[in-house]
């Protein structure tokens, strides 16, 4: 199997779906001729034709409204939002329309759309190219939110998302587009080249939504993470010397509650890691679920490691980013009690 970066794996997913299903098409700002500012759609217009992959006006609300209308007609549109930070002008379309269409029309119409957006920090992108808005989507009944952490999953999850008949927000951790990143920004950048999860089949396959992956088994504490933070957590676990079990949630809606509960029931301890700012972030829900379902197994308080409750600050990238040091501290703290 070829080794692919996450960019290549996503591109491959789109390529496979364009070839396989004439009802799949994709659009967004700069995705057509140019192939997207992160090159995820590179070559697809040339290969599949102008109307299968094209540029749109700078109008995120318009992009999503158009996608919903196409989806209601019967197509499977994939919309790219250039940065997840810029999804907000389309928030009403996603919440009030995409998420609610099936329910309110009693199944007469639905919106089988996939909204791809690079998200997260670690690239010195400042306030508006670094945010992690997943909690905002997770609260919306009717939306799925998917976040891959490696090329294999990225391709399989993206195909599953496109094939899903529910609207999916597909957040791509841009910091790991070209290589895994464990938070050690001072070290040399890695590529995906030798990573086990960069072995990506050329053809069609899916990774189901709602199934977490156990990245590392362990006995003493369960670490819940997704996206870039899977790699940060993995590295932090090694450094801590603690025998932690690392679960990559892969999709936060649907959420693999069974995987979470069965792990924490065993370990009795839990650390949650995400990049988004902490207050009312998705870690709050995870923490609540864990204590509701594993209360009598818990040996110490569930810990959250997250971005600070400030806007994403340009010069303070590494002060803000919840790196391995903070995860190690949380692991130690959770083991103390």
């Amino acid at each position, binding site marked *: 199997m070829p080794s692919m970066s996450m960019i290549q794996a996503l591109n491959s997913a789109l390529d496979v779906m364009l070839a396989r299903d004439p009802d799949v098409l994709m659009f967004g700002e700069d995705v057509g001729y140019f192939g997207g500012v992160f090159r995820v759609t590179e070559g697809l217009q040339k290969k599949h034709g102008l109307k299968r992959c094209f540029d749109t*006006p700078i109008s995120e609300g*318009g992009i999503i409204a*158009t996608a919903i209308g196409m989806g*209601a007609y019967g197509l499977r549109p994939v919309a790219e939002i250039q940065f997840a930070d810029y999804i907000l002008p389309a928030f*009403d379309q996603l919440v009030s329309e995409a998420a609610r269409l099936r329910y*309110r029309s*009693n199944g007469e119409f639905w919106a089988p759309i996939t909204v791809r957006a690079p998200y997260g920090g670690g690239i010195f992108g400042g306030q508006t190219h670094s945010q992690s808005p997943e909690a905002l989507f997770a609260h919306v009944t009717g939306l799925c939110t998917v976040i891959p952490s490696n090329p294999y999953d990225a391709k399989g999850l993206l195909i599953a998302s496109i094939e899903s008949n529910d609207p999916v927000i597909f957040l791509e951790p841009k910091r790991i587009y070209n290589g895994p990143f464990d938070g050690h920004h001072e070290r040399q950048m890695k590529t995906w080249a030798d990573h086990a999860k960069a072995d990506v089949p050329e053809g069609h396959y899916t990774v189901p939504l709602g199934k977490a992956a156990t990245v590392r088994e362990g006995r003493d504490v369960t670490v819940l993470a997704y996206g870039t933070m899977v790699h940060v957590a993995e590295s932090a676990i090694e450094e801590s010397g603690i025998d932690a079990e690392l679960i990559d949630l892969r999709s936060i809606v*649907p959420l693999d509650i069974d995987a979470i509960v069965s792990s924490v029931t065993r370990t009795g301890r839990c650390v949650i890691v995400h990049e988004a700012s902490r207050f009312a972030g998705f870690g709050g829900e995870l923490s609540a679920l864990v204590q509701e379902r594993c209360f009598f197994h818990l040996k110490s308080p569930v810990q959250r490691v997250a971005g600070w409750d400030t806007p994403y600050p340009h010069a303070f990238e590494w002060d803000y980013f919840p790196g391995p040091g903070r995860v190690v501290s949380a692991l130690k703290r959770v083991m103390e009690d």
Partner: protein
Amino acid sequence: MTDGLTLYIPEPPTRPGDTPDFSHLEIPAAGAMPRPPTDAPAETLRDMAYGLVRVLDDAGQAVGPWAPGLSPEQLRQGLSAMMLTRLFEDRMFRSHRQGKTSFFMKSTGEEAIGAAQSMVLDRRDMCFPTYRVLSWLMARDYPLIDLVNQIFSNARDPLKGRQLPILYSARDYGFYSLSGNLGSRFGHAVGWAMASAYKNDDSLALAYIGEGSTAEGDFHEALTFASVYHAPVILCITNNQWAISSYAGIAGADETTFAAKAAGYGLPGLRVDGNDFLAVWAATQWAVARARANLGATLIEFFTYRAAGHSTSDDPGRYRPADEAAGWPLGDPVARLKQHLIAIGEWDEARHTQFESELVERVRAAAKEGEAVGTLGKSKPPVSEMFEGVFEKPDWRVREQREELGV
């Protein structure tokens, strides 16, 4: 230099207690507007946005180049849809007063728009409605009982009790799912139309928006996409002069027409007498021909008047002269179409009265049938329906919560 700037806040010409005044409106004579060819370039059509396409003159005759030449049968069918809409809405409005439903809205005075357009558009086309185009469904014989059951949110509600009354969805009738949010489906129509073109289908989309709601960003975004991709869609602004208590000036009507917005997108913009069934028909036909010929979108402003209150929660006497509706210079669409049919010898008062009582009876029967199933709070779909359709397949949250509630 000035003595400083001042903030301008628009106000309507009259308020409760004043005498209604429509003298500021310029109403061109019926038949006065030219009818350009349907393939005319948009830049040659800009003046259309400042006129008013009218066909029925004061004597009830169809005049001028826009007269669509309809058969008496078509005219009577239109009249029937409009009358049925009005009678049905009157009945349901009373049902609300009797506590049988939580909410209701009427389209009184605007029935010509949905009725004519529903007839011009094809079964394969899709309309993206507002809550004020029930006549679209009436013109396609949507079962009255399904409307009643939806309005009463009873056990047979086709939307399973999930939606506020009148926020229908009727795919088989070319009627897209409504919602309370204003403007947010205007762009869906464009996406639908683009999908049709993408598939080399020839189904068109038609979307409605109130004049007040044109201020939403969605409106502009939809027009932008329609323009850029030449989407085969007919974009209709129902300018009924009011948005709840705010007159159209708060949406910009004192500054220019709504049809004038088309020019900013290089689209044709027509301004049409919305109380003239024939003018609505003709303008729609023009836009349909253009769209089916792959020439893209048309924006149409229907100039009309919201004769009733905004909804059952509203009392228009609080913000406009009580008799304003009566003074509306474009008259009543039902009366005008009736007059036309009589003028051409295809209708008379006796038939009208007779027909009206038949319709009243149909409405009464449907209302009774719905009441027999049950009204709000007295009957509802199984509670399990609350949990269905959130996703295609329920996830553990829905399953657990259903269990917790025991349904």
